[in-house]
């Protein structure tokens, strides 16, 4: 099979690392060769963050380049637009509609661009946009937004069973938050 490329993008501190951990877990369990690449350090302090996940029979490069991503999962609207260039023609964006203002917007140097989802759709891009933050709050904690997004994303990976996703949640979240996260995942699936 051809190598599949998934990108997880967001703002440092939004919990993208747990999402990539879960994804790595299910893909490895499925027997794929997997590479997950992320950058640690300075950019983590509220900056734009990206994780590349690649899987298939044999994966060489650890990074995804412009025009190569099959799916981009975005934790924040502006970040979806920022990383759009990495999407393959015909690729899918799944994005949280939450808006986190970057410093140039906070200081008034720039405006937060309006109607980004419509603008992406106008380019012919498939966008699955939902308010996953509200869903996470409905599940019981705004921090579960990453699990909500993974729930939504699971609908696009037909070869991964729900059982395996449930196992990934169990292996990667603390036991006391397990029910909350399972609820968040289900809310994401059915959003």
């Amino acid at each position, binding site marked *: 099979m051809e190598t599949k490329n998934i990108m997880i993008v967001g703002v440092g501190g939004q919990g993208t690392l747990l999402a990539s951990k879960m994804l790595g877990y299910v893909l490895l369990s499925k027997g794929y060769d997997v590479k997950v690449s*992320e950058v640690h350090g300075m950019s983590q302090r509220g900056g734009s963050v990206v994780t590349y996940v690649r899987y298939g029979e044999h994966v060489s490069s650890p990074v995804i380049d412009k025009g190569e991503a099959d799916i981009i999962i975005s934790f924040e609207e502006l970040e979806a637009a920022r990383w*759009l260039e990495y999407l*393959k023609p015909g690729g899918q964006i799944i994005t949280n509609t939450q808006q986190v203002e970057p410093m140039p917007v906070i200081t008034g140097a720039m405006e937060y661009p309006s109607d980004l989802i419509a603008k992406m759709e106008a380019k012919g891009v498939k966008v699955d946009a939902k308010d996953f933050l509200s869903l996470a709050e409905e599940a019981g904690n705004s921090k579960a937004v990453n699990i909500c997004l993974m729930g939504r994303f699971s609908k696009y990976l037909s070869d991964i069973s729900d059982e395996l996703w449930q196992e990934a949640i169990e292996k990667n979240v603390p036991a006391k938050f397990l029910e909350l996260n399972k609820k968040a995942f289900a809310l994401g699936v059915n959003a």
Partner: protein
Amino acid sequence: MAELMLGNKAIARGMYEAGVSIISSYPGTPSTEITEEAALYDEIYCEWAPNEKVALEVAHGATLGGRRAACAMKHVGLNVAADPLFTISYQGLNAGLVICVADDPGMHSSQNEQDSRHYAIAAKVPMLEPSDSEESRIYTKKAFEISEKFNTPVFIKMCTRVAHSQSVVNTEERILPEQVPYVKDPAKVMMTKNSRDAHVRVEERTLDLIKYAEESDINRIEMGDTKIGVITSSVSYQYAKEVFGDSASILKLGMIYPLPEKMILDFASKVEKLIVIEELDPIIENHCKQLGLKVTGKDTFPICGEFSQNLIRQCLGMDTPSYEAIDEPVPMRPPVMCAGCPHRGIFYVLKKNNVMVYGDIGCYTLGAIAPLNSMDLNVCMGASCSGLHGFNKAMGEKGEKHSVGVIGDSTFIHSGMTGITDISYNMSNSTVIILDNSITGMTGHQQNPTTGKNLLGEPAGKVDLEALCRALGFNRVAVVDPYDLAECERVILEELEAVEPSIIISRRPCVMIKGTVHKPAIKPDTDKCVGCKACMKIGCPAISVKDNKVRIDTTLCIGCKVCSQMCKLGAL
């Protein structure tokens, strides 16, 4: 069992399997996780040393004690450790010694983009370069074998994309070698004849290592189509495989110093066109040219920045995938100081008073970013102290009364102490602010000698910063709370005026440390707010102004009340 591991974690696994007993390191992105992951094995003693020079000396000392040992550092850390490196290369060992060094092409979290391979050549120390996590584990074990076989320290050279990528790793059992007894050997004293003999031994060793490089499976040839032959190493190998697959032949170098000669010439003779793909400097390329080969290299690929599959395609005139983009400019999202960061207040006061700020290496380098814009420059760890002294010697009072150095607690211990000693000894009336946030912040919260805890978080010796600065010759040592803007301003202005060297310790724990008490988020009184944006001058990510009224992001705000001191109307 197969497991997904970070390259750095795989190195730690390799060390565990190789029977390493002692690791001493100084944290630095992208090398930090090597030591953190190794510390999870009870069988390995791990410590944070005050700096990389100390770490390497500790690791070398441990090998004299007969145990396999290692240290890890980022590329610029190797500059600090360079002094012991060159002589340890002569000195030899009593058990295996591996030095992990992680380069940062693209400078994701570094101040420069130096290529550590030059150090291997300069110090005549063999260097292995893994291209993924499984190789990181295997090469680490191989490095210890080479180290003991050839009586030399061995480098494992990582780059950000190998260190911080996860790929599949298989694991093996740990084998602990017997402790080698210590025997006193007069030839170990590096002076006169001993040093001269040692240098001769190093040159002979290099010839033996070249032979090893020719024969070892660490360098391998993957024959494909012979129109193009690619010579590559590290992550560039992965990019080359992505681009060419089997449509080119590849010589994959796992050992980057010393490089084989016969193997390269043989490979070159089998292909029509030779391309060298390597990030940063032309090390492999120059070696090929010395062998008289015609190669495509830095005439086609950049010296600056990271590579990727598309970059290689573009440089070689191959097609790259098409894509869509948004038509309008997307605002940048640079990293910012966290809400409640104790550094913020100090930088605000420095900016307000138009003070020249000689910065240093750490989270506080973010004080250079808008809207604080209060850092003039930075160089390397410790330069804020010594560089400031030099500046003031040139500027006299004009400098002394209007300039400060700012340096974090960990960085101060790393190499600020010697700089401030120069200030007190050679008497410039310089003012250095130690930003003591009780942790090594930027690299992800490591303990250091000022925190009173060791790498495992257990109680440990604690450096008393005030007593230390006094002992180093400073009569004026003040401590301020950076959440109190008026107090900070008063003390900074007083110390700038003082005709004596001064230390100001700005003390508040990092808000991200587990256990730091957060106060309730600020509730703005929007009736009082007139939208003047005075509170925005401190650049807190929790504050925004919409429709002329201040808003506080309650998920970020920790109630530090620095913004309350900015508001003259009592709205915050």
